[in-house]
């Protein structure tokens, strides 16, 4: 599905990774590991096209990614560590908007997804009144709503409680099983079938 070939990235004159190559096929989960500053987030942002100070090639379904941005974005679901949830809007209003950018969903489905993610009863309260974990869960509801073949998740576990962690791990597992692919950065120990790990910042 996604192939990364000979990726080089420099930040502030420091080489983050050299000749990084890997592939991510349907049904696979790849956990990106590495210490702080090893370039995990940078790698994810490069793949998503949010950062273009790199050398190397990216392929999406076998063809160069740069030539089919729209198709790639239609199949991409990215949750950065800034989770794109507006604080003055309610979870429902946030998801109404973001689903229009991906796969339109009616209010019933959105409420259903919010219930599934553990936010039943909070659909209409402004997001600033939610706890940090609940706030993060709003973004996780997008995983249920927006479809997308490739999930790119940057530190999605940071503020979640154990139940939230289990829920997300479950979502990731199910997505892989149904033919999706997941690229995830976390320090959390994942227990998933066929999990692979990419460790950055290894001494050569």
């Amino acid at each position, binding site marked *: 599905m996604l192939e990364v070939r000979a990726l080089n990235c420099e930040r502030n*004159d420091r080489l983050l990774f050299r000749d990084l190559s890997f592939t991510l096929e349907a049904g696979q989960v790849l956990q990106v590991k590495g210490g702080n500053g090893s370039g995990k987030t940078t790698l994810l942002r490069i793949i998503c096209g949010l950062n273009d100070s790199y050398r190397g090639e990216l392929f999406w379904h076998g063809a160069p990614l740069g030539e089919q941005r729209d198709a790639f974005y239609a199949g991409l679901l990215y949750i950065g560590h800034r989770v794109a949830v507006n604080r003055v809007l309610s979870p429902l209003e946030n998801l109404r908007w973001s689903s229009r950018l991906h796969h339109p969903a009616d209010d019933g489905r959105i409420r259903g997804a919010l219930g599934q993610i553990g936010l039943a009863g909070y659909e209409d309260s402004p997001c600033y009144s939610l706890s940090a974990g609940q706030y993060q869960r709003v973004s996780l509801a997008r995983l249920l709503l927006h479809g997308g073949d490739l999930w790119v998740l940057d530190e999605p576990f940071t503020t979640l409680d154990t139940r939230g962690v289990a829920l997300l791990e479950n979502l990731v597992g199910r997505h892989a099983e149904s033919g999706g692919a997941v690229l995830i950065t976390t320090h959390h120990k994942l227990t998933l079938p066929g999990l692979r790990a990419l460790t950055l910042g290894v001494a050569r």
Partner: protein
Amino acid sequence: MFDGIQFNSLGEFLAMGGYAFNVWSVYALFAIFLVANLALPLRKRRRILREQRRRLAAGAGREEDGAADRAGWEVSRQPGARAAGWEKRNDEAASAQ
């Protein structure tokens, strides 16, 4: 060729027909402008090269070390992952709602 000169004396030249201040201030500004924008880059160049030499003398090649050696990476398969690990958690999460 000096026939073409428009002034009969140095004093006349400096007086500029009564517009000495205007004419000479423009030419003075122009001269300062030219000299400044040529001299300052040249001075900066000398400073840059001097700093570069000092840096080289202080620690020849030290920048090279440490810059690239943590740019490695490895892909590994995690054997420890249980096959149905996530399914069980699914039930837990659902019952916890």
